[in-house]
């Protein structure tokens, strides 16, 4: 059985853009014999049961997350393909502690350098996703990765690195002097605002130094981080993080600069390891089109067992696209995330299932209630006309008005006609024969006088 390691695609001449994927590659490269595993740059986290890459596939079994992969590989080979076996107690403990340190403190640094910093993100990181993901996906993946990165680094108070959020127009006050005649005002603060990395230089330097210093100390003059002879899982993880800090050439290279200036020893170690483990620089074509190889890169291809990713055609890409859109819709995305978490929560307890279904019911009923309120408000405001007795009457009334000016003239005419008719009716009512009969009884007989008004 051949393992398939699915990873985020290559970037910056490294085999992957993600530190955990790099760590997993290094681990398999060191622990698993050649020919027993393949490397596939899928760049699709939906494959993995934990919804993150790297993911390892062994037949029908999918393992997500690099730590789970280490455990699974050890279990599968019954303890043969393990890197940390046989480390002395103290070194084993150091390996565990520094792994936690490398991961917990390295992630914010990579987040800041590659994703939060606007300049690095727009000019370097975002375009990279175009080469490792099929067409519509680069529109969705990098922004969501960046949003997570911002969330993770929010507590550091360095959000000023992201200058996209500020309103650029607000700074330009309106002036009657035309653009061409104005003198550019380069104040100190405006220069600093344009280049937030130099503004936050001291904080960034301190963060980076606090990260590299313990690593430098634990390594000392040893060839590996904790052991004199043995390549450990800590080396894999550190290689993943340090190479992503050192190798990318970015417009704002504060992280690599600090590392090169203050910790040349760590830099040398990282570069050595990249050559030894990854076999030197990796091109995107090596990973994505490994089949039509020419003789020049054949040696490198042999170093890492690349296999071309099968994306499942337009249907596969479409479904990934739709699911990532669904994730970014507020309510729906939250529901999807919740179910994902419950599904993997080991044993799912009955009441927990119940509560999640209650959540679903609550969400749906709140949507219905919201829609009902909105429609009710529209009715109340008259945006949607209610069919009532008044409307047709108005329409009849206004039937001549629809003719515009002519209608107005006609309506004058109509009024006159109407008035005449009424006058006629009045006349008729006045001209009704009213007979007054006066009867006078006199000595000469009876005189009858008829007065017809």
């Amino acid at each position, binding site marked *: 059985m051949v393992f398939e390691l699915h990873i985020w695609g290559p970037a910056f001449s490294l085999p992957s853009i993600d530190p955990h994927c790099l760590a997993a590659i290094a681990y398999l490269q060191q622990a698993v014999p050649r020919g027993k595993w393949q490397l596939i740059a899928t760049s699709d986290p939906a494959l993995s049961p934990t919804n993150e890459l790297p993911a390892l596939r062994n037949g029908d079994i999918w393992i997500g997350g690099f730590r789970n992969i280490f455990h699974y590989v050890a279990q599968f080979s019954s303890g043969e393909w393990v890197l940390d076996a046989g480390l002395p107690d103290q070194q084993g*403990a150091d390996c565990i502690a520094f792994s936690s340190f490398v991961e917990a403190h390295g992630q914010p640094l990579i987040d800041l350098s590659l994703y939060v910093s606007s300049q690095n993100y727009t000019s370097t990181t975002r375009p990279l996703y175009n080469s490792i993901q099929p067409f519509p996906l680069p529109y969705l993946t990098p922004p969501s990765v960046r949003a997570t990165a911002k969330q993770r680094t929010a507590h550091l108070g360095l959000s000023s690195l992201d200058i996209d959020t500020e309103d650029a127009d607000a700074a330009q006050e309106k002036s009657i002097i035309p653009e061409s005649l104005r003198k550019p005002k380069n104040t100190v603060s405006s220069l600093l605002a344009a280049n937030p990395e130099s503004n936050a230089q001291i904080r960034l330097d301190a963060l980076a130094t*606090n990260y590299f210093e313990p690593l430098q100390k634990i390594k000392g003059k040893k060839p590996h981080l904790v052991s004199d002879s043995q390549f450990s899982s800590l080396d894999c993880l550190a290689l993943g993080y340090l190479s992503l800090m050192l190798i990318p050439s970015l417009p704002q290279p504060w992280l690599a600069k600090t590392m090169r200036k203050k910790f040349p020893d760590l830099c040398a170690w990282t570069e050595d390891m990249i050559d030894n483990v990854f076999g030197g620089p990796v091109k995107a074509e090596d990973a994505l089109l490994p089949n039509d190889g020419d003789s020049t890169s054949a040696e490198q291809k042999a170093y890492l067992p690349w296999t071309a990713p099968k994306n499942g055609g337009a249907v596969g890409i479409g479904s990934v696209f739709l699911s990532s859109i669904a994730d970014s819709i507020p309510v729906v995305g939250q529901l999807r995330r919740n179910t994902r978490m419950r599904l*993997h929560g080991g044993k799912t307890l009955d009441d927990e299932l119940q509560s999640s279904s209650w959540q679903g019911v609550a969400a749906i009923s709140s949507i219905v209630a919201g829609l009902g309120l909105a429609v009710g408000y529209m009715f109340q405001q008259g945006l949607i006309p209610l069919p009532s007795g008044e409307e047709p009457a108005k329409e009849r009334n*206004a039937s001549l008005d629809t003719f515009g000016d002519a209608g107005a003239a006609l309506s004058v005419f109509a009024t006159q006609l109407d008035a005449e008719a009424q006058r006629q009716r009045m006349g008729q009512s006045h001209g009704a024969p009213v007979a007054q009969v006066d009867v006078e009884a006199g000595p000469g007989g009876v005189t009858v006088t008829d007065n017809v008004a």
Partner: protein
Amino acid sequence: MNSILDFFPMPSDKTFNEKDGAPPAGQTSFSQHTSRVRHFFSIPAPVKTLFDKVPVLTYPPNDLSQRAPKSARIPSLYVFIKKEDAAAGRPSYNPSCLKWQVNFLELCRYQSPSDALKQPCLSLGRLPFLLPPSKNPKEAPTPITSNRLVKYAEEQGKTVEESSSMRYEAYQSLIDHRIRDAWLYTLYLEPLNFSAVAYHLYVSPTSTNPLVRASISHQLRSAAEAELLTHTAIIDTDDLYSEADKAFEALSILLGEDSWFFGTAKPTLFDASIFAYTQLLLDDELGWQEKKLCRALRRRGNLVQHRERLLVRYFGGA
């Protein structure tokens, strides 16, 4: 006599009437419609009148609660703690409070610590915080939050012992991330433990109203969930527990046969931060239901003894 105007339907919107008399009759229904659309987004009249009647007032910031002592002569630390426990000088039930409580006791070792430890004010933002003694009785002192406590102590001429070992940062990250994540999961997201432990500690003391209680428990659980999800895509329980187990293993090896971590003569901040978790996980009175994390800790004998030593030293072995 009927007037001509009777045949023009008057627009209901008065603004039109004022502007240009009677608009051409053909456009009326359309403009009525657009004005309604505009109206749809504007503030409804009753709300507007309400706002006009009740202008927005900005009140000065609230004073400290009445229970807070106005001018203490000694610094007071505010923590999550039960009433009877505070009176008896027992440990707090919140890890970050307990860490500073222990550290504070170490600093105030010769200053009658039981007086200095005050009752919590549950409603006040983030605990723990320290209220320094005020020089001016009329002026309320500014509380000091936990991230500035070390600096404050140094300003007062105390030295907060922190090891300078190269391993310090790495093992501290084990406590701050691996053990804390497992703690968050086991306390808040493990349903059995939440109802048995966290509910009695954080939810039921705050209110007796079932609605408020339900809302607070939901807030607590979702906050813990959000915290865990910032690091990973999904919450993987097996991974959390196995990483915490490995973390205890590493800390146990680091402690070895020493009394305190890094072989110091007296407990440091690091000892306090590990004690904050071990004390609570080993405290049987809390009534843990799902004991996976507790079992992982009990397997490391020297960590259990470390907890006993600190408990005797600061809380009289209670």
